[in-house]
């Protein structure tokens, strides 16, 4: 187990190195340069700025400096907000995104397991049909549409009631978090519901359920202790992709709901071509996603010893 973990960790580091390299060279192959903005610069100022940001160095030297800084955890200074370091941006805004993401994962996980179990319990009856219809909708509608519709609905509800039940946009209190995180988790919830349903149905026909029945266990106990526990296992495997989906989905949800998270800053930096912020946040997000996938894989091996032998 330890050896496997170390091997995965090493692979992850190599991937992150590759992401950093790809990011660096991608950003440096962009036509034009970071200083070619709307402001006309004199030769003198331009030379000073290039020296400040190290842009007058050969590309390989710049790459070396970039990697060296990265190893020390330094992502550089923003080009558009000159007194802000990328580290500060990440430190300030990532916790917001993380809170939103964790809430969304919690909604998606709880909802997915609950609805999936319900559909299996009421197989081919009305609740099953209704939930599966909602699942098809959840899988087919893009996250930004859910975000927009969620906001529209909030405006309507607040308008009808005449006072603000839940805030329409912004961040700060728990009330601000509910709707965005629910919206962010919806797609994943639909996906998990489908997975949970097929996993439950598979387990209903398994030997240990039949044994439990023949022992005379009450149906409720079989459901909670035998079916549900075993059916949740496959749900854990897709947590990795789910985290990736929720992280990138956060970009648009943060945009629509005006939440000061890292995703919104990333999108903004991309739109303004803020090179250092793009490089920094891409490497940061890349490393985060790569290691989340590893953590989920290791977690799965720990929960289900059967998959450890691989």
């Amino acid at each position, binding site marked *: 187990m330890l050896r496997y973990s170390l091997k995965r960790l090493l*692979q*992850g580091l190599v*991937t992150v190195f*590759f*992401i950093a390299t*790809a*990011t660096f060279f*991608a*950003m440096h*192959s*962009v*036509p*034009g340069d970071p200083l070619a903005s709307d402001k006309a610069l004199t030769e003198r100022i331009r030379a000073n700025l290039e020296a400040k940001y190290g842009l007058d160095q050969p590309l390989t030297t710049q790459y070396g400096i970039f990697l060296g800084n990265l190893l020390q955890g330094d992502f550089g200074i923003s080009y558009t907000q000159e007194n802000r370091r990328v580290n500060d941006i990440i430190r300030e805004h990532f916790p917001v995104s993380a809170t939103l993401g964790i809430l969304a994962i919690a909604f998606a996980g709880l909802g997915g397991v609950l609805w999936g179990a319900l559909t299996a319990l009421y197989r081919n009856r009305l609740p099953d049909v209704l939930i599966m219809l909602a699942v*098809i*909708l959840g*899988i*087919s*509608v*893009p*996250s*930004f*549409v859910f975000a*927009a519709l969620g*906001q*529209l609905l909030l*405006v309507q509800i607040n308008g009808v009631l005449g006072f603000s039940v839940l805030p329409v946009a912004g961040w700060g209190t728990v009330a601000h978090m509910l709707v965005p995180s629910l919206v962010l988790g919806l797609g994943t919830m639909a996906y998990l519901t489908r997975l949970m349903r*097929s996993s439950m*149905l*598979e387990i209903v026909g398994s030997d240990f359920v039949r044994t439990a029945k023949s022992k005379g266990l009450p149906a409720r106990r079989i459901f909670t202790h035998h079916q549900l526990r075993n059916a949740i296992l496959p749900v854990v495997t897709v947590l990795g992709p789910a985290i*990736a989906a929720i992280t*990138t989905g956060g*970009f*648009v949800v943060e*945009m*629509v709901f005006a939440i000061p998270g890292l995703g919104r800053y990333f*999108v903004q930096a*991309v*739109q303004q*071509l803020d090179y250092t912020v*793009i490089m920094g946040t*891409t490497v940061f*997000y*890349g490393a985060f*996603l*790569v290691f989340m*996938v590893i953590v989920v894989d290791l977690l799965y091996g720990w929960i289900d010893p059967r998959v450890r032998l691989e």
Partner: protein
Amino acid sequence: MAETAFTADDFQPAAATESAQTVSRPSLSYWQDAWIRLKANRRALFSLYLVIGLSLFTLIGPLIWTVDPSLQDLEQISQPPGANRDAVVVMPHRPWDGTVRLPEIRGLELAEPATTQSVRLAWAPLPNAAGYRLYRNLFPAGEGQALGLPLFETASLNERHFEDRLDLKPRTYHYSVAALDTQGRMTGAVHRLELAVARVVTAQEAQAMGLVAEAGQLKPGDRIKLRAHPLGTDYLGRDLLARLMAGARVSLFIGIAAPLLFIAFGVIYGAAAGFLGGWADQALMRFSDFVVALPFLLFMILLRVASGVQPGESGITPMVLAMVLLSWPAAARLVRGQILQIREEGYISASRLLGGGAPYLVLRHMIPNTLGVILVTMTFAVPTAIFTEAFLSFIGMGVAPPTPSWGSMCNEGIKTMLTTPHELIFPALFISVTVLAFNLLGDGLRDALDARMRSAE
């Protein structure tokens, strides 16, 4: 115990009936069989009709609804479907000298009926006024609230009339005129007026818009209808139906071209790895593992930034290329697995025994036998690609304006979501229906084509 008496007849072989040997039903190929199973699946058939309908909408639609998707109808901006299109023909505008044919002016009043051509206002004197300022607002302003857009200011007490011609729309406006003191500050005394503006056009404008062939056909007072927009218009007055059709071309092109290309590449790559085996297989698969580990959307954004789409370019090609670069490993892995499995089958040995060379084996036996799986993967890749296009265009990193795509239309629509939601809802609906259709079709194809992958229903 009684003895059974056997006769010689008992030892005759049973008569082999000829009918048991013949095949009573026509033999079916793999694809015929799959088609029959697909037809029996109601959901899959429904999705197939949806896909056909969407293709017709994309390919035939623009031939029927020939409105130019980039043409701006400035008379009808952000109009929802089914909006009132009536307009009254009027004379061309003539300057106003301020004469008011009203017996007496009380407060703020209309000197003539309000039209989109001009709103002519006159007002009674306000107490202690050294001057006046006129405001226009879209909403009624309460006590202490800003009165809206200042249109006109005067220090002359006799000049108590104004003609508003500033970008008038057929809707309700709230005008107010405030009294100013000698320093130009508002004293607090205000006249208010709420009025509805009627839509008018001149005969010349109607001819320029193509509503009538000759301006002379219209006389002032005639009622005509402005251009029809079945699904309304967007914030620049462009026809939404025409834009949805043009956007369908872009979105569906990306949604189909990208999976086609990356699956083709993946098939070649995977087949090569699976067939070569050993050291080459290991090296090829390590590399694909690497590409899989890259965060997909993050790299899509990065590649888009790196490709540096210039103004005037649509950005479709870089997006398809980026998708191909990042998405092929899934198909490659799948095909490799299939090839490894098929390699051990009896019919491959038989073919090899009969003298089939490596290319022949791969092309004639291995790839045709994986086609079913490839087709299913392809069908499921289409919604993913459409989602990716929509997501990237939505954050402004996809198809560049003015090229319409469903994603970029959503991006534009969300800005006016609260007042005119139809600009967001229609493209969003098309994305959802397309994704839904391909997902259901994929489910149906999987059930029909591959017994091993049949879903547990």
